[in-house]
């Protein structure tokens, strides 16, 4: 079913609420001088919660497109909308008591957080190349500003500059790919593109051109998901940005990037055929994704081994995780896609958790260096235990949620008979265990000579850490709702 502009508004409440919230924050920021510090975060939180509420309420029946085919509304899009809104809420709560952001005016920060969330929701839904490009740009532009938010900090400025330069180049490459695709099919609508490709039977040199399209567009999506070889911006940007922004970037735009990647490749370049997507004859684009996945996890893990700055280490580790997540997308099966969604969901809680511990420690210690984490267990047992749980979850050790993600991903890969691919993944997980354990060793086993002064944590941050710990510990027990939810979420418009 395709809805026109007016009818689509009924299914567009979450986005409208975010937009309205953003405008209200801007207005309150310039008009309420005394109250704005209190009101802006509340407005932002209210907008995000209300948007989440309406997203959960959405009952769209079967998959359909909105706004004359610009957006696709299906279970897959709804999964990502819920995911991105939850990520937005957690990051907002984490940014409230952050010393880095406390030093600067925060009005724009909240407006930008709403704008970037809006952009990501649109990104997860886009079914039209124009909309896809525009929402991607909205997310990128807002991220550049958020990364450079600490204006008097040299690293923050440098990070923002690097991010812009890399972003501009990869977006340019992606657009060139789109233009080639338009030239071959004469359409910008993803589903019309697929139909045109199926109708004309890609043969001869058009196969090479289509491969070129795949490589060029992967540059654009790879930039957003920080996949190798489009990851060069990632360590510097993650190190320079304010830590709450880094936490945000490592989860939300990455997930939106995966959503758009799946929608583009599975929705636009492959034909649905009962449980398994066949790719359009003549081009083997899953091979490109598998190669990118292997490179991404290997390079991310190896580079993370030698990092002594915790933010930088987590940046490389998030590159590695992008590789694991890509394993699911590269398989082209329903199980693979479902595994990817499960992995993303647990990754949200474990990675945000690790970054929030880093934020909390920076609040009182003003450092990201691993040496300064020595003796943390004696100073704040709660923080050390929380960090250990997040890191064990990131490794994929059984009682914690991360195990669930790894189980689904490796299960799906082995299901397809790609044993070597699973082996590469497992080796990588073993390498990753080393540097995660190293952080735990510094926090728990190594003590310096100084007497252990207790670390002060604000009540809000304690509550937030507990909120993040709960899913990490309990998801393994309550995995069946997740299983059902993700199994439902793999229905793509025009797909299975």
């Amino acid at each position: 079913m395709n809805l026109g502009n007016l009818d689509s508004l009924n299914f567009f409440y979450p986005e409208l609420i975010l937009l309205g919230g953003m405008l209200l924050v801007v207005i309150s920021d310039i008009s309420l001088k005394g109250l704005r510090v209190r009101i802006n975060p509340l407005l932002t939180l209210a907008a995000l919660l209300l948007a989440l509420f309406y997203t959960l309420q959405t009952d769209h029946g079967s998959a359909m497109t909105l706004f004359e085919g610009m957006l696709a509304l299906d279970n897959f899009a709804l999964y990502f909308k819920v995911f991105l809104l939850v990520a937005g809420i957690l990051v907002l709560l984490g940014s409230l008591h952050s010393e880095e952001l406390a030093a600067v005016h925060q009005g724009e920060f909240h407006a930008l957080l709403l704008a970037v969330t809006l952009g990501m929701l649109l990104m997860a839904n886009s079914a039209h190349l124009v909309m896809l490009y525009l929402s991607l740009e909205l997310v990128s532009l807002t991220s550049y500003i958020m990364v450079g938010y600490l204006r008097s900090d040299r690293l923050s400025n440098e990070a923002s500059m690097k991010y812009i330069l890399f972003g501009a180049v990869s977006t340019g490459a992606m657009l060139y790919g789109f233009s080639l695709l338009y030239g071959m099919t004469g359409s910008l609508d993803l589903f019309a593109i697929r139909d045109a490709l199926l109708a004309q039977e890609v043969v001869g040199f058009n196969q090479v051109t289509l491969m070129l399209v795949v490589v060029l567009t992967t540059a654009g999506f790879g930039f957003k998901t920080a996949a190798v070889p489009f990851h060069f911006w990632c360590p510097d940007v993650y190190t320079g940005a304010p830590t709450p922004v880094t936490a945000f970037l490592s989860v939300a735009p990455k997930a939106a990037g995966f959503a758009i990647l799946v929608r583009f490749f599975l929705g636009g370049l492959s034909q649905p055929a009962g449980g398994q997507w066949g790719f359009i004859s003549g081009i083997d684009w899953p091979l490109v994704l598998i190669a990118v996945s292997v490179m991404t996890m290997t390079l991310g893990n190896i580079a993370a081994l030698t990092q002594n700055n915790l933010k930088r280490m987590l940046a490389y580790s998030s590159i590695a995780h992008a590789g694991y997540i890509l394993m699911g997308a590269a398989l082209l099966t329903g199980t693979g896609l479902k595994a990817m969604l499960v992995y993303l969901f647990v990754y949200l809680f474990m990675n945000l958790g690790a970054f929030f511990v880093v934020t909390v420690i920076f609040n009182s210690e003003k450092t990201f260096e691993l040496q300064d984490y020595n003796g943390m267990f004696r100073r704040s047992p709660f923080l050390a235990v929380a960090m250990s749980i997040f890191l064990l979850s990131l490794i994929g050790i059984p009682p914690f949620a991360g195990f669930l993600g790894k189980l689904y991903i490796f299960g799906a890969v082995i299901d397809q008979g790609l044993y070597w691919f699973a082996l590469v993944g497992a080796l990588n997980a073993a390498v990753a265990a080393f540097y995660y354990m190293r952080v735990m060793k510094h926090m728990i086993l190594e003590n310096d000579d100084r007497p252990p002064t207790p670390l002060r944590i604000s009540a809000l941050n304690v509550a937030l850490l507990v909120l993040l710990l709960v899913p990490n510990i309990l998801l393994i027990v309550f995995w069946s709702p997740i299983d059902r939810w993700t199994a439902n979420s793999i229905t793509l418009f025009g797909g299975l």
Partner: protein
Amino acid sequence: MSVTDIVFILTAVVTVGSAVVVVVSRSLIYSVFSLLFTFFGVAILYVFLGADFLAGAQVLIYVGGILVLLLFGVMLTHRLYNLNLTTERFQPIAGTLIAAAVFASISLAAFKTKWKLVGEKELEPTTQQIGEAFLSSYLLPFEIASVLLLVALIGAAMLVRRRTDV
């Protein structure tokens, strides 16, 4: 060779040539001025494609707006001349190889792909069609573009705020 072909070739040469000058010129001010010709060349290429409105917008926005801003930016920088614009790491061999590979693959794709062609079309004004598209099937992108501009405005306001004003 018809007149159209000659005009096209001339335009192409000027566009590409001035773009090369933009990149290799040692002085920023030369780069900006030769960008003028690149922008004009692109506008003429739009005319060749029958996109009259786009050509007008290209001249108005790029030549009239962005280029003038760039000129201001360049003239307000401290060291206008003898500015070393090359990066610290300069890799001529790898760079040339990659550039050549990109050029080869893109030009091969341009010549050998079987494009979906619409054939010769009567020239007709496109402004009305664009306007109608913006308010019907492209309404959402049109509105989201304004959100994008708002975000850019907020970012610009944030950049120019005085540091003391917290």
